[in-house]
């Protein structure tokens, strides 16, 4: 196996762990502080500013995931800073599935389902803002 590739078994293990991690986080999200306490630029630089890894990291690439979440501004119900997407958990699952499919949605021949779905969603959005004739 090439060093950058994950085995199917490790992928399944990681995906299950990440799923549980995400579920736990989403359950705690409404009660979390709206900003990480005592966070500083030096701290995040120290944690995440390391050198490029020249060897494939495998599952270890996820070792700092908890720290990444702890040093992030949560999408809390008390976040009223900027316009953002809904952040609904189902959207995260959709992103996951989309990344697994990994399409180039530039032409129907390249991404038959995705191109059709994209046009469908644009039609839905147009309809939602009153442009019902959009095709």
């Amino acid at each position, binding site marked *: 196996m090439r060093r950058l590739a994950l085995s199917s078994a490790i992928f399944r293990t990681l995906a299950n762990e990440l799923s549980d991690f995400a579920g736990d986080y989403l359950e705690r999200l*409404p009660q979390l*502080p*709206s900003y990480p306490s005592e966070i500083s630029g030096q701290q995040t630089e120290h944690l995440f500013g390391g050198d490029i890894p020249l060897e494939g990291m495998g599952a270890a690439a996820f070792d700092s995931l908890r720290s990444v979440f702890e040093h992030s501004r949560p999408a809390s119900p008390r976040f*009223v*800073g*900027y316009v953002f997407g*809904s952040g609904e958990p189902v959207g995260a699952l959709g992103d996951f599935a989309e990344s697994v499919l990994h399409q180039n949605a530039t032409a129907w021949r390249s991404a038959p389902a995705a191109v059709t779905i994209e046009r469908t969603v644009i039609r839905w959005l147009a309809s*939602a803002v009153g442009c019902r004739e959009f095709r």
Partner: protein
Amino acid sequence: MQWDAGSLDDLRLAHLLADSIDSEPRLERLAPVALSAVCFRYVEGGGDLNALNRAILNKVVRRGHVYISNAMIHDKFALRACIVNHHSTEDDVRSVIGEVLSSADELR
């Protein structure tokens, strides 16, 4: 909840926040609330209000109860709450005012 009901509820909460600001003499609203954004500032005590409100913004964010942002409106530094989160409740939105006033008290 349907998506359009969620959007309408966000607009209701934005107006609720605007009304609460208008009835609080220590705060001044800086723009009409046409959609989701509510821009205002703390005015009691006078002085360099831009510097004061910049400090208030930093304090509010660091206190970790609500996260708001900012805008410049006719050279006035505005605190900005943008209500587009369908998980936000009336209490969440009202807490913006309490956090701004408490932060100002800490700075004064």
